[in-house]
């Protein structure tokens, strides 16, 4: 396993995933789509954590532990975020972040 694929390959894939997620978070208009971008970024981080765990210190479970924490927190974040969007949608009839501008200036 370790011989088949170098660590750098995983890191580059994770970097690409992160960059795509970043683009999603920066460029999408729909709040839920932004959330999806953030989820992608979190996944990229997780891939990094697990890859480093596997390649650098497989005996120590810290990498997996933190990946699990991130999964749990991402789930919580998604729940809260979506609940917020639904609440916003109810009161303002839109989930486009450009139109939710009550706090501007």
């Amino acid at each position, binding site marked *: *396993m*370790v*011989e*088949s*694929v*170098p660590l*750098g390959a*995983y*890191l*580059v*894939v*994770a970097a*690409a*995933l992160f*960059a*795509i*997620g*970043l*683009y*999603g978070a*920066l*460029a*999408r208009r*729909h709040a*839920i*789509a932004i959330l*999806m971008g953030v989820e*992608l970024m979190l*996944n990229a981080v*997780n*891939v990094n954590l*697990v*890859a480093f*765990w*596997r390649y*650098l*210190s*497989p*005996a120590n*479970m810290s990498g*997996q*532990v933190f*990946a*699990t924490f991130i*999964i*749990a*927190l*991402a*789930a*919580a*974040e*998604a*729940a*809260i975020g*979506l*609940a917020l969007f*639904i*609440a916003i*949608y109810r009161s303002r009839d839109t*989930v486009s972040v450009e139109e939710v501008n009550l706090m501007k200036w």
Partner: protein
Amino acid sequence: MNVFLTSIFVIVSVITLVGALGVVMARTVFASGLWLILSFAGVAGLYVLLEAPFLAAAQILIYVGAVAVLILFAVMLTRRVMGDPGVSQNNSQWGAAAVVAALMFIVLSLTSVQNWRPSTESPPLLAVNALGEAFLGPYLLPFEIVSVVLLVALVGAIILARE
């Protein structure tokens, strides 16, 4: 063996990245959600390749089975039920965003590709048991805090979402 695993890795990576691109390119948010599932599944595949089957299963269970469903649910709830694809899905700064994302990718890749020295150890045979011991041993406090955070998120989401 080498070629076989390498090609699986390539396939899984391509699935992940294509899924991710689909998320940010799709015309409708619902389609984005579907692509997101593909990407999540690809990440789970990466975990399998990295010999973390527990995380792979957790990824499928939580991301695909729960988060993605939640997102699709929210999409259904926040758009007119049979809504049109709408105007452009991207905002005005998408060009700058693309440049920044590309630069980010370059910077991250530059730092990633170096001469890592992989450890020759293999992961513990009963990784799930080791993980459980890690949670209830050195990481007890973070574990409990995460539990509390989840509980708070649960309550908060219910309060926010109910009318």
